[in-house]
């Protein structure tokens, strides 16, 4: 079996997530070739064939050109699977490649089973097994689901390039909002999720954070709703944290949130839904109403 792995490069740097692709290919037991729109100053530690296009010519986000480059490499390699990380780069580009080749795409793979792929569904509460009808396809793997694997060596570089305007113009990057709280250094984080019900309840969660001597964190919906500032957001698009204690209050556990906090030493989750995916990684799941349990806990802790 052969895979064409699509590496990722942003703001002049090879992204570490690229190595998760090798971790996946190893579990699949597949041969590899890689394609990267990047720079020869940032080559992956990999001894195989690398189709390398110059990002300063082909752009970092230029889906039409990148698709063209991938299709060219597919012609040469004839892979069974073309593999992306399920990231803002991967989920944007993968369907374009799959549509051009008229092959199945399987999104956000977390496991391999019996000739098929295991993917999450229903907000990560359930799993599906999916099989591409032709045995060939485009795959995206869940970020963080596979181990980082650095094969080592220097790649046999085959330079490729693409030209043309493309259907969109990339204007540039906008830096992340300045963080007034560095949650990355916090030893204790108490986070609020949608389960707290309303903005007025945020102080209740903040009170527990204070009583424990920690910082306030938040899940995405709470930030989107304007209940808590973005600088407190934990997850893929917020901060990645690894405190000694993480208390998740009314957080169901969307993948994007879990990716940002699963390395915490000890996780306590409070949720009224016993099946919430946060339970999969929590050391302790307290099945209770957050607004009843948290004030009671704060009172005991503060004493």
């Amino acid at each position, binding site marked *: 079996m052969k895979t064409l792995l699509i590496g990722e490069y942003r703001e002049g740097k090879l992204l570490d997530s690229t190595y998760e692709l090798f971790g996946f290919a190893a579990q699949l037991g597949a041969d590899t070739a890689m394609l990267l729109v990047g720079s020869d100053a940032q080559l992956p530690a990999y001894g195989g064939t690398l189709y390398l296009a110059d990002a300063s010519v082909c752009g970092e986000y230029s889906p039409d050109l990148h698709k063209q480059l991938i299709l060219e490499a597919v012609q040469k390699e004839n892979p069974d699977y073309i593999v992306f990380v399920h990231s803002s780069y991967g989920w944007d580009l993968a369907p374009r490649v799959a549509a051009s080749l008229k092959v199945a795409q399987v999104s956000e793979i977390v496991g391999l089973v019996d000739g*098929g792929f295991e993917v999450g569904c229903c907000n990560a509460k359930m799993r599906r097994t999916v099989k591409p009808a032709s045995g060939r396809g485009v795959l995206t793997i869940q970020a963080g689901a596979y181990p980082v694997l650095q094969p080592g060596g220097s790649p046999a570089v085959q330079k490729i390039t693409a030209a043309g305007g493309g259907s969109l113009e990339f204007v540039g990057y906008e830096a992340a909002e300045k963080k007034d709280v560095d949650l990355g250094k916090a030893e204790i984080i108490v986070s609020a999720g949608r389960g707290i019900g309303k903005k007025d309840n945020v102080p209740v969660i903040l009170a527990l954070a204070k009583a424990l001597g920690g910082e306030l964190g938040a899940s995405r919906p709470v930030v989107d709703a304007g209940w808590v500032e973005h600088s407190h957001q934990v997850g893929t698009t917020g901060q990645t944290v690894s405190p000694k204690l993480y208390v998740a209050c009314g957080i169901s556990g969307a993948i994007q949130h879990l990716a940002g906090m699963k390395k915490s030493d000890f996780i306590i989750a409070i949720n009224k839904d016993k099946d919430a995916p946060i339970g999969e990684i929590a050391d302790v799941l307290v*099945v209770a109403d957050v607004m009843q349990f948290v004030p009671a806990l704060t009172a005991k802790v503060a004493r």
Partner: protein
Amino acid sequence: MKLLVCIKQVPDLESRFKPDAAGVWYNETDLAFRMNEYDEYAVEQAVQLREKLGEGTELTVLSIGPDRVVEAIKKALAMGCDNAVHIQDTAVSAKDPWQISSIISTYVQGKGFDLIFTGMQSQDRGSAQVGVTVAEQLGFACTTTIVGFDYADGTVTAKRELEGGIKGVVKLKTPALVTCQLGLNVPRYPTLPNIMKAKRKEITVIPVADLLTADLLATTTSFHPPAKKGGGIVLEGDVGELVDKVIAILKDKTAVLR
């Protein structure tokens, strides 16, 4: 200008899911359905553009599924869409993203739509494929995961959400398709007068067989809960007792309390 927003109806994700008889998707009994959350942002953005452009602009909402999806269509109409297309399909869950995309593309083909809005993914299937695939099938410019949107003179300026809070700014010429991320705007609640007004708006019903020509590219062979990893303790019961247990655990397992 002609605008289209594609929406899906999904179950309340707080529900407990049980496999259906074939064991390949959820059993719909006892599930409450609502508009896919990502699609609410897509509808809101489309309605805001419709309001900005005013007369001469038409906004259509489209949904594929059994008759229950009319409820989500009516919500979109009450939010401000002008008219609707219900592609009637009682076997929608058996279709893969390629077929769903093809159904939409076949409908759109030749109707002169300038701009299409979709959610970036559904909350139940979560493949994040349909929007982009529709754009590819139609040859529309496309960008995904937008958290900022502006339109002027045939050009969309969108902000894409990237990892770590960085954003990418992109310009696209119409015809174009954008997939919408949570937080793009604040989806409105339909007002009572608008709910009443929506009852008079036209919903065109098309049987899916009229639009389906594509073959299935992927099949789902199983739907099941994730394997329990174990290790975690589940505590249930009286709040007072739960607090005592958690305090004991904090003292025992962490250095947080002494």
